[in-house]
Each structure stands twice: as structure tokens, then as C-alpha cells.
């Protein structure tokens, strides 16, 4: 059974008097523990698709199902609660809150749980440890490098232990070596911590870290690629 299932999904926006079609009849499945890269030119609908999977947006028509839950019908409040429990988000520009230090940023999603103060602190410290930033826990984002900020963002995404991580250009603002570190970290989270990862990227090298790559163009899925090593694994 697919963890994420998009069936005949359409998404259009109103721009002035015109209606802009962003996604055209997309059907797409992601299995548990999969690592999918979504590629395509700008405006092809990658981020929109990610937003639909992450419950940040709703389709114009079609059905988005995640872990057997149809997101279309959820109220705004229920969708928010579902996001807090089931999805971790990683953005291109990190989206850390500047007034909080690294640990406090990581702790934010836990404020929505019933965990006590000490346990929240402990879990945040553990998440920072997983991304290798224990020693920067008290640093505010302004005192961290781009790569470190993205690690904090990843720690924040995994701290509530969601099944799925949606990453929107996670290496888009980083240099090559830092990007590689982040991609390796995502790979570890996928392989060792069983996280299902859906990552939007422009970078073919980044896509190589995924198990599958999907190409989008003008709102349509044009091809599905499986990385050679994964293909071998599947065949075996």
C-alpha cells in the first residue's frame, strides 16, 4: 500500500481574471521508506505538488491520500494537527525563527504535543545530535552557517518523529560540499531512520541521492526514473 497517493489531482490558481493550471491530472504514489526526487523546470508544479502532499494546500480536484487519510476533506484545524504529527518540512531558505536559538527552533513542533518541558528539551537535543549540531544548540540562526541552519531545520523536521519529510530545494541555497553533507544526512534519515522523503530539486546531482526521480513539466508527470543502484536492488 502506498504511503502517499495522488489520484487525478488538478490544481489551478486564479491570477487576475485568468485561471492558471499548475497541475494537470497528476497520479502519483510514494511507498513507505521511499526517497523521491521531484525535478522539473521552474513553474512545472513541483512545489505545488509538495504543498499538496504536505497538507499546506488543497487540490482543485482529485484526491490526495497520505497514510490512508484523505487530506481533501480535513478541516483546517485537523489538517494542522495532522501536519504536526505526520510531516516534517525542510525548506530552501531554512525558515528558522530568528529570535530562537537552534534548540528552541527544534523544540517548536513539540509545543503542540503533550510532552513535558524536560522531555521536549531532551527530544530537541536528540534531534540536534542526529544532525550533528549538539554543540550549536544555543546559537541563534544568525550565528550559524547556511549548512548548519539547514541541519537545524532538518532536526526540527524530524523532532516529532514524522513518517514523511517533504523537502523543497533543501540544497538550493548551499555550496556543493555543504549540499552533499545535507543530502547524505537525508539519505541516512531515509535508510537508517525509515523516513519517507519527497524532495524537490533542480539539481541532478542532488536527485542522485534519491531512490526515484520524477520529472514534471507544465504540470504533468513526464517520466519516472529509478536510480541504477536502486534498479539493481529492485531486480535482485
Amino acid at each position, binding site marked *: 500500500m502506498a504511503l502517499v497517493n495522488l489520484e487525478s489531482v488538478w490544481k489551478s490558481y486564479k491570477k487576475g481574471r485568468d485561471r492558471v493550471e499548475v497541475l494537470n491530472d497528476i497520479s502519483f504514489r510514494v511507498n513507505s521508506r521511499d526517497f523521491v526526487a521531484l525535478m522539473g523546470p521552474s513553474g512545472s508544479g513541483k512545489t505545488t505538488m509538495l*504543498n499538496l502532499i*504536505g497538507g*499546506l*494546500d488543497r487540490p482543485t480536484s482529485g484526491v490526495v491520500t497520505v497514510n490512508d487519510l484523505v487530506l481533501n476533506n480535513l478541516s*483546517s*484545524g485537523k489538517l*494542522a*494537527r*495532522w*501536519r*504536526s*504529527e505526520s510531516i516534517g*518540512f525542510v*525548506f530552501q*531558505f531554512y*525558515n528558522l*525563527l*530568528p*529570535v*530562537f536559538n537552534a534548540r*528552541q527552533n527544534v*523544540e*517548536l*513542533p513539540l*509545543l*503542540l504535543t503533550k510532552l513535558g*518541558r524536560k522531555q*521536549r*528539551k531532551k527530544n530537541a537535543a536528540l534531534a540536534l545530535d542526529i544532525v550533528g549540531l549538539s554543540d550549536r544548540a544555543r546559537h541563534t540562526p544568525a550565528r550559524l552557517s547556511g549548512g548548519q541552519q539547514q541541519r537545524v531545520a532538518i532536526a*526540527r523536521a524530524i523532532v516529532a518523529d514524522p513518517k514523511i519529510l517533504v523537502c523543497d530545494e533543501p540544497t538550493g541555497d548551499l555550496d556543493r560540499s555543504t549540499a552533499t553533507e545535507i543530502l547524505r544526512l537525508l539519505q541516512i534519515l531515509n535508510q537508517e531512520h525509515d523516513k519517507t522523503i519527497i524532495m524537490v530539486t533542480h539539481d541532478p546531482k542532488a536527485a542522485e541521492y534519491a531512490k526515484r526521480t520524477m520529472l514534471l513539466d507544465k504540470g504533468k508527470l513526464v517520466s519516472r526514473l529509478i536510480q541504477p543502484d536502486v534498479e539493481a536492488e529492485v531486480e535482485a
Partner: protein
Amino acid sequence: MTIFGFLIKSMFRRKLLVTLSMLSLTTAFLLFILLRSVAVLFSGDVIDVPDVRMQTNSKYAMIFPLPHRYGEEIAAVEGVLAVTFASWFGGTFREGDTSAMTFAVDPSTYFEVHENYQISTEHLEAFLGLRTAAVAPEAIMYRYDLEVGEKVPVTSSIYPNTNGEPWTFDLVGTYRSENESEAAFLPFLFHYEYLKEASGESDVGWYTFTIEDPDKATEIAQIVDSKFENTADKTKTMTESQAFRNMMEQFGDISLMMNGIIGAVFFTMLLLTANTMIHSYRQRIPDLAVLKTLGFSDGKVARYMIFESLLFCTSSAAVGIGIAVATLALIGPYLPSGFVLIVTWNTLFWGTCIAVGLGLFIGLVPAFSANRLVIVDALHAR
């Protein structure tokens, strides 16, 4: 990190802007308390005198004296328990200082009528036994650094001493009122007989008397005034608290002026603070979008905005009110006698209401906007 800590830290995202805005609001509440205490003083609500105590003054103005014989006629009215009288002396204790409340009284009846004034038997006997004796309330003792047993020189522009020297009184005791609100209104008391002998004065300033039933105050006032209706010295009788209010109203409608200033101050603050909150909200739109992305619901984010606004206003108000109360406590002893600036429960209640109302009002727009914030649009705009 707790939710409260989270909100505090979020609120101080722009430390300088928020601190300056809070200082403005603190000043507004400081002004509110100070101006309200002046307004309360002039509204006459500041003292809490027993309902059974009434006062008879000249119908035309308080400064016109009344004949000495009126006392017996008032005492004869049914329902009247005890009568005393006093004359305004207007004593100055220090050269260049404003006059303090100083009354020439009948010591044998004064404390009988003013039952809530507490004086020891020893001090009362000393007061009764010496013609030049005087007793002072604690506020005047403290203000002029007086001690029982000393001779106190006092000058009066109303009754200048015939020898050109200050009047000299033997301070034989002190007294206080069981009503704290009356403390600063208590006068320095000395023998009317001493004033009468030295100045030839034969009339008295006003009569104060107690009645059996406070519900009959209006009826008794009418009976007393009707007794003197056909004389040259017509009277006006009322409860002592009403008399005090009337005296204060002669200064003009100070309350209205004070409330007008308070209104203008808070209207300005409303605009200024609302502007700060909206500005702060706009800067935080991306952060709010991130919170929503992480799973904070629309309602929760809106409630945070309201709470933050309430916190902003109530903490500023608390500091402002605290400073005002401390200031009044510090300057209180140095204010002229009778100029009592107190913070009433009513003032505190309205201060709290304004703080909460302001917080809710200026938090509404950011809260409404935060509630409707579309995550995708807000993140896209970052």
C-alpha cells in the same frame, strides 16, 4: 521552552521598537493614575466619612460665619445626637509654606461628634485642660516634624495675632482617624475660646453634628435649615461627605478636565500601539507561516497574537500603575494638607479594564489577519 516563554521571546523580536512602545504605554498609564487621583480628589470621593455626620454652613458661602447660638437650636432638633463647631484658622507652620488645615474647635464636643477620631484619654485631658493647648494629626506631625510637648508657632492671614507675633500653641497630643482615607484631611486643632479671647471673634465657621438615623439625613437637614430661613444668616445643611464634595466642586469640574486629558492620551496611545502591533505583525508574517506549517492551527496563531497584545498592554499598564502608586506614596507626605492623591480601587479597576480593552482591540487586526494567513502565499513571499 514554554508557550509563555515562546510568546515573550516572539514579542521582543524587535527589542528597541517594542521597548519604546511599552515605555510610551507605561507613561500613559502612569499619567492615567496620577490624573485620576487628582480627579478623584476634586470629585470629593476621596474620603469616607460616617453617614451619620452632618454639617451646617452658611447658605451663601462657606466663608461666611454662623452665630454661636445656632448650636443649641441644632441640638434641639429631634434625631440630632451631638453638636460641635469649628472655625477655619488657615494656619501656616513654616514661613513661605502653604497653609495647613487648622481649626479652632470646642474640645469638649469635637471628639464626641467625630467618633472615628482616635485620641488617647491622656492627650484629650491635656487638650481640655489648657487654653492654649492644641492637638495635631499624625500627617501634620510628620510633615512639620512636630513633637508632643513643644510650643508650635503658627501664623494666620485670617486671624493675625494682635501683637504681630505668631500664635503659639502648646502641642499636648496627637490623634488619628480610623478611616485611612481621612488621614490627610485631619486638621490641627486648638481651643476656639483661645481664638475668641485673642481676636474678639464671636461667630463660628460651621456646625457639625451627628444624627441617630442616616436615612433621616435629608429630613433633618430641611428642619435645621428651615429654623434659620428667616434670619440674616441662612444655613445649608447636608451630610459631611456631600459638604466635602461641594467644597471640591467650587474649584471647577476638574474631573471632567482630567478625564478629557486621559481620553486624549489613550486615544493617541491606541493609534500608536495599534500601529506598532500591526507593524510587528507584518514583519512576522513569514514566521507565522512557518508556525502554521509546523502544525499550529489558524485559531492558535490568532490567539497568540491576541495574547501577545494583551501581554504587551497589561505589562505596560502594570509597570505604569506600579510607578504611579510608588510615586504617590513617596510624594504624599510632602503635599499640602488636604491635597490627598490616592489610588482608589475604582481607578485600579478602570486601569485594568483599559489595559485589557486596549490589548484586545489592538490585537484584533493582527489576530484576524494571522487567522486568515495562507501558508503557501506567506512562504512564497519570504
